């Protein structure tokens, strides 16, 4: 069987990595894949062994001709959208094309359904008061491939959950020690990977979104500077300017190839992210690496509302209050600086994935500091999270292999 993947993310790597992970897991079953991607994903695909075609927004509508040509020469049996959300958005926005131009190939269209669309109302809360409506076309598609995590493992005739990652990124103690020494750390220093993607620092032509993108790192730095000096921070690629205040405790390295990033990921003691849906977090969990996610559930438009939040949290530090005063209005977010809060309600509900990492409310300073301290230094908390990860991984291991899942799904469209 031959699959043509559209991995059209122009902002982050996660969607392409999910598609590549699926393709890699299907390869032993003799399934051939071909990727169509945006320039930013080329570095992931180069050297991966998967053939690919790069589309560029400068091609405009002519990009379709290249897709036509690829379909004619590769002759796929089905099209995989990696993922559905990205696919729907990219072609209209960047190429001026109706995304469903692919209908004319008369091939089955299989969406990778990261967000469990069937459980949503197809409206994504993006920034303060700004929502994005998404095409409901996925509901007509006979098969939804859901990567786990973050999706639930629940199946249905239409839903086919598959393990996101087969591999384990853990590295040897020798490599961990070597990297610590290379970064100038003592053996027992704690290495925290601050997972901040390029898209989290983009400008969104939205005053609220841009302000929150800029200000949240200030609050994060305020927290991180209170951790013991033995806590060191690793950042990859473009770094928010505010994080430079971490000084010598932050180690910045250029954007990484996947193999370098794997070494890094496997060597750290903690992944810290403000993106609940981060693929890096999912990979960390699947590699038994601790994670901590900071999100914000509060919508605060004006200063008087700060007291309400303080009451709900059972207190608020002066620093957070001062930061809030400078930052308002604030909207709820689970994928900073994007909101995705209400939108993610269904996917986080009763999801055992959430028990595999620590979580704290961004505005709750004592909670953030205590979560950081506990995941890094408290053996009891570490063991508890490790047990949750182990249980989760055990459940995943009992799930049929991705090739089997895919074969079952294929029966639905063939």
């Amino acid at each position, binding site marked *: 069987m031959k699959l043509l993947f559209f991995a059209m993310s122009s902002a982050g790597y996660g969607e392409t990595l999910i598609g590549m992970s699926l393709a890699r897991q299907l390869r032993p079953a003799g399934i051939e894949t071909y990727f169509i991607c945006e320039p930013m994903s080329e570095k992931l695909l180069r050297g991966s062994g998967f053939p690919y075609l790069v589309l560029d927004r400068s091609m405009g509508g002519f990009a379709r001709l290249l897709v036509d040509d690829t379909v004619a020469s590769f002759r796929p049996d089905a099209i995989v959208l990696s993922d559905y959300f990205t696919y729907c958005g990219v072609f209209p926005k960047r190429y001026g094309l109706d995304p469903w131009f692919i209908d004319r190939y008369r091939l089955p269209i299989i969406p990778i359904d990261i967000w469990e669309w069937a459980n949503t109302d197809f409206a994504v809360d993006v920034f303060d008061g700004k929502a994005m409506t998404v095409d409901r076309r996925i509901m007509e598609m006979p098969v939804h491939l859901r990567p786990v995590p973050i999706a639930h493992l629940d199946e249905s005739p239409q839903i086919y959950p598959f393990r996101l990652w087969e591999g384990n990124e853990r590295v040897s103690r020798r490599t961990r020690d*070597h990297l610590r020494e290379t970064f100038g750390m003592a053996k027992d220093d704690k290495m925290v990977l601050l997972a901040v993607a390029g898209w989290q620092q983009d400008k969104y032509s939205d005053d609220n979104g841009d302000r929150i993108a800029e200000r949240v790192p200030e609050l994060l730095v305020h927290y991180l500077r209170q951790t013991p000096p033995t806590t060191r921070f690793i950042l990859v690629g473009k770094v928010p300017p505010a994080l430079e205040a971490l000084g010598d405790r932050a180690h910045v390295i250029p954007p990484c190839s996947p193999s370098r990033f794997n070494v890094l990921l496997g060597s750290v003691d903690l992944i810290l992210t403000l993106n609940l849906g981060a693929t890096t977090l999912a990979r960390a969990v699947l590699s038994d690496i601790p994670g901590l996610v900071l999100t914000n559930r509060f919508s605060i438009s004006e200063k008087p509302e700060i007291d309400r939040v303080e009451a709900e949290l059972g207190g608020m530090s002066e620093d957070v209050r001062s930061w809030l005063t400078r930052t308002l209005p604030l909207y709820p977010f689970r994928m900073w600086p994007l909101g995705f809060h209400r939108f993610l309600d269904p996917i986080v509900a009763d999801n055992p994935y959430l028990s595999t990492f620590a979580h704290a409310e961004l505005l709750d300073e004592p909670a953030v500091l205590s979560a950081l301290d506990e995941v890094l230094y408290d053996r009891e908390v570490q063991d508890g999270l490790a047990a949750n990860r182990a249980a989760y991984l055990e459940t995943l291991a009992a799930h049929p292999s991705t090739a089997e899942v895919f074969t079952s799904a294929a029966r639905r469209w063939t």
Partner: protein
Amino acid sequence: MKQLSMHITDLCNEKCGFCVVGSPLAKTDSVAYGDLIGFLLENAGQGFTSVNLHGGEPTIHPRLFDLLRTIRLLKYPRVEIQTNGRRLKDLDFTRRLAEHGVELFVVSLHGSTALIQDSLTQTPGGFAETIEGIRNAKRAGVAVRTNTVITRMNMGRLMDICRLCVDLGVDHVNISNLHPVGSGFFALDMQAPTVAETRRFLLPVIEMMLATPTRLTLEGFPLCVITPHEDLAIEDGTRQIRMLYQGQVHDDYDGFMDEQMRGYGPPCAGCPLRARCGGVYHEYAERRGWREFGLREPSSVGG
């Protein structure tokens, strides 16, 4: 010089934080002995004047002497080994290598004291062994070239390192720019000196070394960084190196490095040194940008 160059192992008995091969990150050895022999057979009688063995650490390869015997059997005229020199502390071992045709050891020396060297190589006790290894190489009548990667940890001691080399009777001192790949990728931020730092510490060392009989070369530096000593660049266009590296053959190693590993940026436009310059390591420019580069004054040699 027409050289056959072979990466014979990924593994190493040191853990340099700037290792370009990433040996400390290697879990297993990707090099197959059969491929090494195949490469030697394929190139025998093709006019190569030397074979250069490197790794990882070639002296820990379990079949090193088999390899040397094959090289001799195939009548390659000369063998060089790039090594950290630790195993050369054993004089008998060093003499055996000499007897098997090794005529040059290229020894990694990154510190003038155990504190610096052992920190950079993450190998306590390594410095003393390396120094003894250099002495043994000279005792065995084998020429020694040292290679020193300039880092923020050793740049202030570069003069001492070079003086130590002269005192040890080293024949040739090579100073290398940190190439941020392998382990070096992770070390870039902490260990790679800026252009200003490099020039501040390197230029006086060059002046000192030029007053000694010991040969000095510089490797991997954009020429604007080392001007007015561009003529000391080891990549002088006369080397012809065919390299086997982790299963891949590079017919022109220097060309490969220039084309794949280094690049040019805005300050290079119109630079009179450009035609001879390999450019800046991509990873360095990605992290620190291009503002540091470019000729501030006309070059006496290139401009």
